């Protein structure tokens, strides 16, 4: 019975106003951090106000039993739980939002019943959970605006809690805590920065359900046609010359006009969370017109799915015949500015989590939607990407299928000097891969990336003008030149448009993709392998780096590289070191694990030292003493307050003067025997003392104050 009561009792009422205020600050900050997200804006005012009111109410009623409050809160908990179940049933693919709403309301209700310190600490704990929820929803650095005050309030709350606990242990003088909190906060933030850098990052996103916007009933406006909202005709073949729009890339249409000039702005158009770093591929163009590109095959395949994800079955020539296991690339796209109705994804998209159940798949492996991406839209894609190395590509062999040769080697009449350049560059190159790299190197080394070039001054072939007249230009011109040169050298190739990976924000873990990251690059076909990306434009991420983990492994990665480099230097001079290299290299690869293991060992050693320096177990008299003090507290509430100078026996006599108190007598005798007896009392004595205490408690509750018997 005593054990059960100990379990359900939350302790004495907490009277410390500063502790309550700091914990209230932490809770309100966490609530504000969560409700900063669009999905919870409706709770932004109500929940913090109710939480504050709840804390005030709890302080006011902290000494009372409040059974009626508990009943009301229990009923309201059931109500919000029922609402949560209804929301989940209505949309089982988006449980995070109703779950967060449930958490917010549970936190709010709990605020009305936090009389004791244990309850307050539970509120602090739940505020950490809310901060984690806010971080999971966070896509930009706004979260840090909440994290800084949260750190302050949490540290201050912990300091006040420690002070309150110390006050229980020994009455201290009044403490000035402001300097302690300030210094601690600075130290904690500094250490946190170091920890953040040192924290190993592993590949994650092994989620059952990836995020996507709730499904909407949309009109199928485009019926598989590509529509670019930045251009009046949607980026198609409009009448006359297109007018440059700095807020939208002209390559997201059915054509790419190489005569267009201008610079895109730096507005963030989307944020991408991904396991790996890739170009976000959108559209593919196979037909070169001399002044631009178009898609020769406008046919699309409609794919419908009732429930996400939508699994894609690509056209025959898009299916990769690569024998090795592809990389599983999981990506979530958070749209910030309206985008064309195409799915941006790392190649090759396999499963889609979209707000629509109907998509269109073209023969190039690109996916089109029934409407454009509106700001706030979220969708996820699981891709199966191949990043074959040079040796693998050199070993590619076999005949290119005739239908691919027809489509991807076709060229309009081009100037002879272009064809001559292609043959000159690829002469003597034994494999397709070497020919591709020869052209790629030539473009990197002899041409400049420049967005300020004037319009084409002389009529004629756009690639010829770029290669021999202007010699500088946009990524579309680099990519077009590479594709034309490769086709001239009998290597199937095509032009791809999309977005470069963007800039990784290490704090959010998201790639921030700007308008100016819109990009064009090249895919070349290798028999037996499939389409492989190449980057012709200097200054853009080399395709060799694509497929790298999205989140940098920070110091762990650098340490592994450093160790490997040092060992390689040693191995060059010593055969023994060469033997060690393999093992050490493996160790360096697992530097994170080694670091973790060392940290664990250090923690264990510290704990061992601490355990060794702990004082020996207290005499049982100490435990009996604690029980005796509880008895004294119990009696003090009933009017028998033990004077500091009163001995155990004298106090017993005084209590018994008002009536027989056998429990007090028995417990006093046990304590005296423990303190002055020749032998230590055993566990039986402790158990007996607990029984007496429990019996005394029961009897006191039944009797009037100040009287026994």
């Amino acid at each position, binding site marked *: 019975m005593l054990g059960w009561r100990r379990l359900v009792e939350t302790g004495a009422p907490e009277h410390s106003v500063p502790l309550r205020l700091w914990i209230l600050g932490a809770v309100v900050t966490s609530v504000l951090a969560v409700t900063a997200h669009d999905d919870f804006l409706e709770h932004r005012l109500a929940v913090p106000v109710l939480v504050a009111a709840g804390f005030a109410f709890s302080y006011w009623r902290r000494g009372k039993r409040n059974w009626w409050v508990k009943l009301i809160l229990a009923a309201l908990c059931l109500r919000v739980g029922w609402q949560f179940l209804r929301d989940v049933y209505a949309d089982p693919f988006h449980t995070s939002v109703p779950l967060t709403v449930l958490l917010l309301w549970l936190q709010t209700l709990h605020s009305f019943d936090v009389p004791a310190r244990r309850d307050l600490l539970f509120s602090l*704990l739940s505020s*950490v959970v809310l*901060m*984690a929820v*806010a*971080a*999971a929803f966070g896509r930009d650095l706004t*979260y*840090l605006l909440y*994290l800084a005050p949260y750190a302050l309030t*949490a*540290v201050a709350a*912990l*300091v006040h809690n*420690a002070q309150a*606990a110390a*006050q229980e*242990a*020994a*009455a*201290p*003088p009044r*403490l000035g805590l402001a300097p*302690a909190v300030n210094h*601690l906060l600075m*130290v*904690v*933030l500094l*250490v946190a920065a170091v*920890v*953040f850098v040192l*924290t190993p990052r*592993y590949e*994650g*996103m092994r*989620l059952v359900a990836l995020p996507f916007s709730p499904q909407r009933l949309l009109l199928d406006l485009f019926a598989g046609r590509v529509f670019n909202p930045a251009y009046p005709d949607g980026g198609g073949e409009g009448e006359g010359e297109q007018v440059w729009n700095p807020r939208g890339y002209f390559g997201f249409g059915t054509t790419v006009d190489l005569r267009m000039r201008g610079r895109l702005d730096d507005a963030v158009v989307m944020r991408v*969370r*991904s*396991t790996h770093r890739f170009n976000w591929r959108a559209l593919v163009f196979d037909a070169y017109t001399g002044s631009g590109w178009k898609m020769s095959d406008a046919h699309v395949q409609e794919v419908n799915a009732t429930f996400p994800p939508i699994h894609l079955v690509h056209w025959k020539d898009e299916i990769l015949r690569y024998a090795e296991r592809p990389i599983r690339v999981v990506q979530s796209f958070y749209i910030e500015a309206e985008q064309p109705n195409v799915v941006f994804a790392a190649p090759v998209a396999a499963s889609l989590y979209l707000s629509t159940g109907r998509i269109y798949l073209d023969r190039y492996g690109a996916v089109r939607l029934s409407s454009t991406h509106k700001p706030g839209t979220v969708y996820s894609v699981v891709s199966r990407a191949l990043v074959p190395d040079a040796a693998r590509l050199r070993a590619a062999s076999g005949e290119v299928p005739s239908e691919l040769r027809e489509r991807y080697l076709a060229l309009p009449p081009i100037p002879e000097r272009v064809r001559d350049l292609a043959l000159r560059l690829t002469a003597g190159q034994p494999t397709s891969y070497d020919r591709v790299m020869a052209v790629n190197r030539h473009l990197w080394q002899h041409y400049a990336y420049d967005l300020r070039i004037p319009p084409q001054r002389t009529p004629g072939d756009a690639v010829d003008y770029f290669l021999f007249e202007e010699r500088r230009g946009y990524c579309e011109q680099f990519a077009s030149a590479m594709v034309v040169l490769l086709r001239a050298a009998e290597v199937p190739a095509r032009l791809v448009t999309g977005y470069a990976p963007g800039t990784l*924000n*290490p*704090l*959010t*873990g*998201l790639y921030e993709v700007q308008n100016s990251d819109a990009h064009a690059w090249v895919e070349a076909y290798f028999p037996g392998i499939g389409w492989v990306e190449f980057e012709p434009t200097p200054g853009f991420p080399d395709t060799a780096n694509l497929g790298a983990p*999205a989140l940098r492994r920070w110091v762990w990665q650098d340490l592994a590289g450093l160790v490997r480099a040092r060992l390689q230097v040693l191995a060059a001079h010593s055969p023994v070191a060469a033997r060690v290299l393999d093992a050490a290299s493996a160790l360096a690869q697992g530097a994170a694990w080694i670091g973790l293991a060392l940290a664990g060992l250090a923690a264990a050693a510290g*704990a061992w030292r*601490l355990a060794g*320096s*702990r*004082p*020996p177990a207290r005499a049982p*008299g*100490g435990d009996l003493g604690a029980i005796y003090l509880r008895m004294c507290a119990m009696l003090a509430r009933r009017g028998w307050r033990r004077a500091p*100078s009163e*001995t*155990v*026996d004298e106090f017993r006599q005084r209590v018994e003067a008002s009536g027989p108190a056998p429990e007090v007598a028995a417990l006093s005798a046990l304590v005296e025997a423990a*303190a*002055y007896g020749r032998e230590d009392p055993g566990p039986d004595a402790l158990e007996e003392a607990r029984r007496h205490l429990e019996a005394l408690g029961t009897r006191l509750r039944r009797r009037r104050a100040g009287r026994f018997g």
Partner: protein
Amino acid sequence: MPTREGTTTALLAGAVFLLATNLASGLLFVLDALLVALLLVGFGTAYLPVRGLRARQRVPAQGVEGAGLSIEITLESRHAGRLLVVEGGWQGARARALAPHVIPGVASQVSLALVPPRRGRFALDGLDVTSKGPLGLFTARRRIAAGGRITIWPRTHPVPPGVLAHLVPVAEGGSSGVRTRAAEDLYGVREFRSGDSPSHIHWRSSARRGALVVREFERPHSPGVAIVVDLDSRQGAAQMDATARTAASLLLAALDRGADVVLTGWEEGPVEHRGREAGMDWLAAVAPCAPPLAEVLPRLRVAGRHMMVVAAGLCHLPDGTVLAC
């Protein structure tokens, strides 16, 4: 060792790390770093102040049963620390005090206030210093050896005038208070008490002890008093305590009146103690260890003195009168 709050924080940090990894969320890694930093700082601020800590304790030589006394503790640490709880005392009488700040290179004073529950001679335990640091996430404990002994005198109470009259008869010169120095011999010194003449203050002794001390005078031929303490081994601890308290009360009352008091009893043989400190020190530790008083009384050297036997907390006169003290 981690406290409940520390364990909870560690579990949360682990959960947030898993969540951050699975969601590939940098912001969750930031939150996780904050939690880990709290743990690291909490561990450091709890462990370091205790690790480099030295302590000295200054213990009064005597205390009185039931009367508060303080043990002064000086702490010195190589590291700054906050909220250090110092626990010390002896078996059955332990107290805690809080050292709010410990600054490296600066001695911090802590006073342990405790109430000795029982007379006796005690060896002080070591000091247990506990630090939870300012964040309270870890508990670091260390026991520091800091020796010392203390004697707790029995509690005294006012002696009824009737008993006092038997103990120090007026006819033989007993009177209360400190007498004038005319025609009297210097007996000794004692602590200043309210009502003492300032002219009797012995300044040299006062300066040495740090408390006012007055000269005590005695008439040349003051009467002798013997207080016989019953140490019958058959009596219980509570009875022995009561006897020691009564004997102590009589001793001090008699000394205050200038009587020549001998405190006597039978341990392994007859023992005699004269003066305040010797008598009280003996009473602090007396234990029931002797044969029945009737057997040993004839062998005690009390001839020529007024005798009063203290047994079971009561005063017994030679004529058989029993007085409650």
